[in-house]
Structure formats: structure tokens, C-alpha cells
């Protein structure tokens, strides 16, 4: 777009090209502005969801940290933060361990019923959450899992599994099998070869799968709505009730913190992607 137009371009071509550029930037604006707007609003000194006169003219008194204070002094929010991390952590461990093992098995050429099993393992990603939530509520209640950490961890781990499968399978598909055979031909046992050769190479895939699983749990609210007792409220659950019952800028402060978390996440993921490409060396097509 920034290169000079080819000589055969007519005026209409050029106009079209500018129109495209304008549309593209308008869509980017639509994508990013709603998220950016939250950040200054969270420093509002007044309990409103909009810019006050003072904020527009940049008066220092119009800005404050009071909504951030409101998070750290409110035991409900602190409990929610703690719960989100506890549930997210254990759900990630379960999903990543089982998911990585299964992905290794599934990438074997000898695996029977591969397509069917793959479709089954990926289905938690496709079935609407409300259906999963209703089903889990019926089923987990029978075992007394409803309203417990165990129930939520199991539920969130099931949601995280497809992401681990996808990322690990993707890394394994680009994996050069001759490296594994090289290890074996040098006399290492299959298990040792697996841990010393394969694991370091698929680690970026495992880590990004784990991150997807964690974010899935961290962001999930529908299952929490149905399965959690008052003691297991997570951050999104707390935001959900906050948005329904008493809207105040504390939610905007939480939202701002969560945006920071996703920025950190995005940076890590990009770092992992580059590392994985570097590790796999010349194979990378780009």
C-alpha cells in the first residue's frame, strides 16, 4: 500500500486503494478503541462510566486511584483473584499433562481411530458453554462436585484440553522424526530419547498449550455461574455480578488489570513462537 502505484493504475484504482486503507483503519479503530477507552476511565475520580469535564481538560483532581484501592480493600475481589489463580493453575496442570500425553499418542502413525478420537477430544471447544454448564450441573451434583474447587478444576481442565492438543500436535507435526531415530541409533533408550530430544523440542508447544488452557480457565464464567458456590467465585464471576447488580468503576479497574495481563500474555506467546521457529531451524517456510 505504501509503495508507489503501478503505472497502469487509473484514478479509480487509486481512489479504491485509499478507500480500502480508510476502511481498514476504521475497522482497526473499532477493534481497539473500546478496549483502550477503559483504561483512562478506570482512573475516574467520580463513580461514572464516562469522561467527566475534568478528565477531558486533564485536571489532576479528576483522576484518582480510588477504584484500584477498592479492589485491594474488598475481600470479595481478593478472594476472586485467589480463586481464579487456584482453579486456573490446577486446571492447567491437569489439561497440560493429560493433553500432552494424548497428543504424543495421537501423532503416532500407528494410532487407531485417530480421527474419531481427535473429534471427541476437540469437542469441548465447539459445544456451547451453556450446554456444558447445564450437563455438568446435572452430572457433578450426583457426585457432590457442584460447589467445590474439584468440580470447577475438572470442568475447566476439560475446556482447556483441546487447546493443549492443538498446540502440541502442531509442534509435533513439524517435528523431524530423524532426530528421534538419531537418538535411538546412538544407543539411548526410547524413554530417554523422548525426554532428552523430543521434550525440549516440543516444549514451546506445551507451554503455549498450557497458557491457552490457563487463559481459558481464567476467562471462563458460564461454568462458574452454574457450578461454583459462593466460596469459589472467580474474577469473571465477580465482574459478571458486578455488571448485573451494581455497576461501578471498580470493574473498569479490574478490566484494566486484565488488559495488562493479556498484553503480557501476547508478548510471551510471540516470544515462544519465535523461539519455536528458531529451534525448528530451517524448516520454517517463512
Amino acid at each position, binding site marked *: 500500500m505504501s509503495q508507489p502505484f503501478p503505472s497502469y493504475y487509473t484514478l479509480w484504482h487509486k481512489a479504491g486503494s485509499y478507500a480500502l486503507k480508510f476502511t481498514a483503519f476504521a475497522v482497526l479503530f473499532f*477493534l481497539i478503541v473500546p478496549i483502550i477507552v477503559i483504561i483512562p476511565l478506570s482512573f475516574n475520580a467520580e463513580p461514572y462510566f*464516562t469522561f467527566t469535564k475534568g478528565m477531558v481538560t486533564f485536571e489532576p483532581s479528576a483522576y484518582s486511584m480510588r477504584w484500584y484501592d477498592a479492589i485491594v480493600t474488598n475481600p470479595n475481589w481478593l478472594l476472586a483473584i485467589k480463586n481464579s489463580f487456584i482453579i486456573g493453575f490446577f486446571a492447567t496442570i491437569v489439561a497440560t499433562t493429560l493433553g500432552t500425553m494424548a497428543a504424543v499418542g495421537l501423532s503416532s502413525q500407528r*494410532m487407531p481411530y485417530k480421527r474419531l478420537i481427535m473429534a471427541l477430544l476437540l469437542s469441548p471447544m465447539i459445544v456451547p458453554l451453556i*450446554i*456444558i454448564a447445564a450437563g455438568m450441573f446435572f452430572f457433578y451434583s450426583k457426585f457432590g462436585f457442584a460447589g467445590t474447587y474439584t468440580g470447577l478444576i475438572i470442568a475447566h481442565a476439560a475446556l482447556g484440553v483441546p487447546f493443549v492438543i492443538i498446540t502440541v500436535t502442531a509442534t509435533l507435526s513439524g517435528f523431524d522424526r530423524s532426530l528421534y*531415530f538419531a537418538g535411538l541409533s546412538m544407543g539411548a533408550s526410547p524413554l530417554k530419547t523422548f525426554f532428552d530430544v523430543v521434550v525440549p523440542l516440543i516444549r514451546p508447544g506445551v507451554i503455549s498449550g498450557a497458557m491457552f488452557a490457563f487463559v481459558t480457565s481464567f476467562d471462563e464464567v458460564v461454568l462458574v455461574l452454574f457450578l461454583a458456590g459462593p466460596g469459589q467465585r472467580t474474577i469473571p464471576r465477580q*465482574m459478571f455480578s458486578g455488571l448485573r447488580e451494581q455497576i461501578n468503576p471498580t470493574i473498569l479497574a479490574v478490566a484494566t488489570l*486484565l488488559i495488562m495481563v493479556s498484553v503480557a500474555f501476547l508478548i510471551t506467546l510471540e516470544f515462544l513462537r519465535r523461539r519455536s521457529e528458531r529451534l525448528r531451524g530451517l524448516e520454517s517456510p517463512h
Partner: protein
Amino acid sequence: MSNTTTNVASTASSDNNKRGAAILTKEEARFARRELRRHKMTAFALVVPLLVFISFAFVAPILTMLHQGYYSPVVADLIPQTLEKLESWDGQGQPDKRVLTSMAIDLKRLAADRTSGKLAAEINRHKPGASSMVKSTARKLRRKDDADLAQNGAALLLAANKSWADAKTWQAVQKAGKIYTDGFYLTALDLERTFEGEIQIREATQIYIQLYTKTLRMALVITLMCLVLGYPLAYFLANAPSKTSNMLMIFVLLPFWTSLLVRTTAWIALLQTNGVVNSFLMELHVISEPLDMLYTEFSTIIAMTHILLPFMILPLYSVMKGIDKSYMRAAMSMGAKPIPAFLKVYLPNTLPGLSAGALLVFIISVGYYITPALVGGTDGQMISNIIAFHMQQSNNWGLAAALGTMLLILILTLYWVYDRFVGASNIKLG
């Protein structure tokens, strides 16, 4: 992970088949087969723990929900005696005296256990208005003594409320008493069964077909909006210099990775009566009164378009990135006008990404719950919200399960289409 031995063995045995000559001895062939089986078992053993876990954590709950859609033991558990006696009734006029007496005794017991409300609610689903009739009868019978009830139960029941003489009441009791019922599914399709067993369009309220239509319509509008907004942006990003596109891609990926609740919160902040958009428009004197944008179908569609747009852009972008720029140049240098060249050359090449994105957005939006629940108000509710309503507020779990089953069938059909045209294993992340 396969092993050298097997590899060699299997190559050898396939050569063996090809040439029809015995390269392997019987002993060796058996060894190769055993090795192959061992590897199959190893691969399978690695997958089994997850299969067991998913079966328990995910598949069993879904099956339980399907079961809940036709299984309704509540009434059968509450008044077993009465239902048993009611079986011989022909459906015309007032049932046998024994039935009425048994009902009177049951109602007294339920009133004492404080479970008459449950029965009332269940019967009410089959005969609107029956709830208060059942409850008041139970209240009146509570003070009667057992001997009196056993003697004149029928008369006391009729004295408490004359609706008990009505055949319709008993038809409702009989329907509610069925342990296995297709009633929830029929209700979910706006149908009902007459006492004679014929299926007809529900007389009372028809809401669910309308709800499915509305959900599908909203999902379609959202998909089209994503397409209209996503296509030009993906095209621009795919054709921009990589430095520019990498930087601008952040604007697509950041919303994608930002919490759903955060994005929904953002739209509440923007669209509410005293929100950013209204203040901005009023400051510019475009409007004098704030517009009611939040809690409408409009706000649901806007917020969901924003949330799902990256799902459209990412597959489109990756497909467009692979299209050689010379195709369009060739078409235009041969004299094609830009628009026909685009329609005949470029657009067909983007179809894989376009169908992947569109199907994904459509599938996700059909089953969406959170955003309509928070910004939808009354007219932006979708099928998921009604399922949640029956789960949490009206406590009609059977109907919730039946509606859920319908939604599941719809989604699985769409997923099947997606798998056929796009391939489920082609799902890429970020």
C-alpha cells in the same frame, strides 16, 4: 512415536506383499506383527488417560443432559399411588372414586411434607392455572384427619375445589405423571400432545420456534457484519508490507486475547445512557437526548461483532497471505476491470478462509450466552439465555435440557459442515 525396529519391519513386510516373495521368515513376521501391536498399544495407552478423563468430565455430563430432556420422575415420585389407580381411567369425565380418595390422601401428605408446591408447579406446566388450585386444595386437606380422608376423600377433594371434577385436570395429572416423556421436546418445538395422543401446534404460547429463528437471524447478522468488516481489513493486512502488518496485527490480537468480560464491560461503558458514545454525540450536538442503545438487540449485535471479529480476520488473513499477488496483476494486465478481476480471481481464492471464518463465527454466536445476558436486555436474548433461565429461575430442568439438546444438534450439524469443508484439525490458534 514410532521406533526404528517397527519401521524397518513394516517396510520389509510391505515389500514382502508387493513382491510376493518371502523375505521375512515366519518367525520374523510374527515378531514384526508383535512389535506393531506393541506400538499401537503404547500410542493408545498414552491417549487413554485423557479419554477416561474427558468421558467423565465432559461426555457424561452431556449424556446426562440428554437424558434429563425426557426423564421426569418428580410427579411419579410424589403421588405414586394415585397415578397407579389413575391408569385404568378412560380419560372421559370424572375418574373413579378411589382415584379421588387416593389423591386427597396424597395431597394431605404432601402438604405436611411441604412438597405440594412441587406437584403444583409440575401439573401447572400441563394445565396453566392448576398451580393455585392444587396448593389451595392441599392447604384445605391438611387439617382433615386420616380416617375421614380414607372414608370421604373423594367428596372432600371435590368440596375443596370443583376443578377436581374436570377431566382436563386429571389429564394434566396423568401427563405430568409420566416418567419418560417427550413433552419437553414437544414444548421446545412449540408442539403439544392432545389427550388422544395426537401431536398438534401448542395452543397456549408459541415462543421457542420464534426464539430459534431469532437466534439464527442474529447469528447471521453478526456473521455478515464480521465478514463486511473483516474482509477489507484482512486484505489490507495481507497486502501491506510485513513491518506494517505485524504492527497492526497487534490491534487484532489484543482484543482476541482480552477477556470476554472486559470487552463486554467496554461496550457497557460506551453504550449506556450516560456512557461515552452518548456524551460524545451530545457534546457535538448531534443529538440532544441520550439514545437508548444498551440493553437492546442492537447492542448485543455490536458487542458480539466486536468480540468475534478476530475469528473472521485470522483465517482470512492466513489464506490471503498465501495468494500470489501476480494473479490479480495478471488479470488486470489482460484488461480485466478491477471489480470483475476481484470477483473472478481473488474472491474464489479466499473462499477457504472465508468459509472457515464465517462458519466459526456463526457456530460461536449461535450458542453465545454471556454477552446477550449482560447487554441484551429483553429483546437481545438468545437461545442460551432461555436455557439458563429455565435452569436457574423457572427450575424447569427438563425443558432446559430439551432446548439444550436442540441447540446441540444444531451446533453439531454446523460442526460437521465445518469439518467437511474446512477440516476440524485445521483449527489454528493465533
